[in-house]
Each structure stands twice: as structure tokens, then as C-alpha cells.
């Protein structure tokens, strides 16, 4: 069955190394989180600061897009090459995004024109 995995005991050095590696990865994730929080602050700030809507709208949409890519690749592990079927998953997500965008465009053009 697919559950079969052999138990492999790590050496002390390997174990210590892996723990440190996990800690470094976690620190990177906190940095990613800090970037997301910063972008959220900026998005709210430009709206409160009352800039021209022609600047604000594309700008906050861009911030949202960057935040989402960070979420997908950092928090949701889409960038991890070892993960199973990661190529299929990437293809699915981006095709999903393209379909989503098309649906979006369709609805808007049907209603507005």
C-alpha cells in the first residue's frame, strides 16, 4: 500500500541542522507576513489620504495581486519543487485564474456595454 514508508533515524547533527533550517524558513515566512501587513497598511493609507481614484484603483489592485502571489508561493507552498504534483497544481491555479479573469471580463462587458 501507499502508506509504506521506512523509518529513518537522523543523526544528531542532521537533526540539529534540520531544526535550524526550519527556524530560518519560519523567519522568512514572518518577513513575508510583514510585507503583506505593510502592503495592507499602504492600501488603506492611500485611500484615506484621498489621492486621485485613477491612481488609487490600479495601485491597490497591484498591491492585492502581489499579496496574493506571496500567499500562494510562500504560505501555500506553490513554489516548493519537491511537493507532489506541484507542476500540475501550478498549471491548475493559473488556468483557474485565467478562467476567472475571463468570467470577470465577460460579466463586466455584458453589463456595461
Amino acid at each position, binding site marked *: 500500500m501507499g502508506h509504506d*514508508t521506512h*523509518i529513518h533515524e537522523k543523526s544528531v547533527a542532521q537533526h540539529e541542522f534540520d531544526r535550524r533550517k526550519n527556524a530560518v524558513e*519560519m523567519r522568512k515566512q514572518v518577513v513575508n507576513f510583514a510585507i503583506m501587513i505593510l502592503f495592507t497598511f499602504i492600501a*488603506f493609507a492611500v485611500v484615506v489620504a484621498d489621492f486621485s481614484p485613477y491612481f488609487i484603483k490600479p495601485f491597490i489592485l497591484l498591491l492585492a495581486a502581489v499579496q*496574493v502571489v506571496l*500567499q500562494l508561493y510562500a504560505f501555500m507552498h506553490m513554489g516548493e519543487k519537491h511537493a507532489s*504534483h506541484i507542476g500540475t497544481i501550478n498549471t491548475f491555479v493559473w488556468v483557474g485564474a485565467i478562467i476567472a479573469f475571463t468570467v470577470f471580463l465577460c460579466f463586466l462587458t455584458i453589463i456595461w456595454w
Partner: protein
Amino acid sequence: MDINTKYTPKTWPDHAEQVTLEGKNKFVGIWIFICSDIVLFASVFATYLALKDSGPSGMDITAKELFGLELAFVMTMLLLTSSLTSVYAMYHMKNFNSKGVLIWMGITVLLGLGFLGLEIYEFYEYTVHEGFGFTHSAFSSAFYLLVGTHGLHVIIGLIWITGLIIRNAKRGLNLYNAPKFFAASIYWHFIDVVWVFIFTVVYLMGVLG
């Protein structure tokens, strides 16, 4: 050897959530679900944008008057932080610290409950005090459909994670429950992904008019 094999921090595999076939399948499965959810949210988003501020003649409530930023800001912070706490849970899973996983998943649930409470309060205010009920206009229907669908996802996520915590409280980590926690954390991040677009498109762009 079966999935109930006991592990120690030293024998715990590096990517425990994807060592078994079941774990691999769960990872792909949750992503296929998320892709279908992307399309679902695309249609409710498109509906909202198309029907924003429109309704029967004489309709007097617009997005610009209705939405406030304070509540949306607090909700965004709660959900974004809950995303980080579930990353902490996954970090403890890598280190075979089952208590850490349970505690951080618990914090995630609490933050999610805070978010849900604020959302219910917001809907209550709109419906009862502003007279902006679901049937008020095309705009209100589209708004509640979009934000409500997201809220439903939050409720399902909370029930799911709470169930996992209760069920695995005394089991410790093994190759059977590691993929379950992992899939739940990916689903929770996806809820945050959708919310990033909701606060940008609905609240921020709504306030702009």
C-alpha cells in the same frame, strides 16, 4: 508498518505531510478544490462589480455612503494574522511538536472567530440600522452573496480545524493526521487570498465611489 507508527523528532520525516500516498493525494485534492473555488469566487466577484450601486429606481444607498474602513481594516488584520498563526502550526509540525500544532491551530480558530463575529456585526448593522437587507436592491444581493460566500468558507474552515484539533488532541502527530492539518492550513490561506481581493475591491474601491 502502518500509518499509526509512532515517531520521534529524530525519525519524523522531513515532509511528513507528503510521505504517504494519501498525503500526496490530499495535497493535490485540496488544490483542485481551490481551483474550482477560484472560478466560483470569480463569478460572484464579477456579479458584484457589475451590479454595484445599481437597483430599483429611487434606491438611495450607495457603496460610498455605506462602507466604513475601520471595521474592514480590523477584519483584514485578524484574518491576515490567522494566516500567519497557521504557518506557525505547520512550522511546529515539521519539528514534530504536536502541542505547538494544536495551540497555534487553536489561535487560528480564535482569530477566525473574531473575524466572523465582526462580519456578523457588520451584516446586522447594515440590515437592521441602514435598511440594507438582502432584498433591498441588486447591489445588496450581490454584496451579501459575495461577502456571505466568503463568510461561509470561514465558517466551514472553523468547523474543519476545530474538528481536527478535538479529534487529534490526544493522538500526537503521525503520518495519518499530518496531511489533514496541512490541507486545512492551505484551505485557510486560500480564505485569506479571497479576502485580500474583497477588502480591495469591495471596501477600498467602494469607499472611493
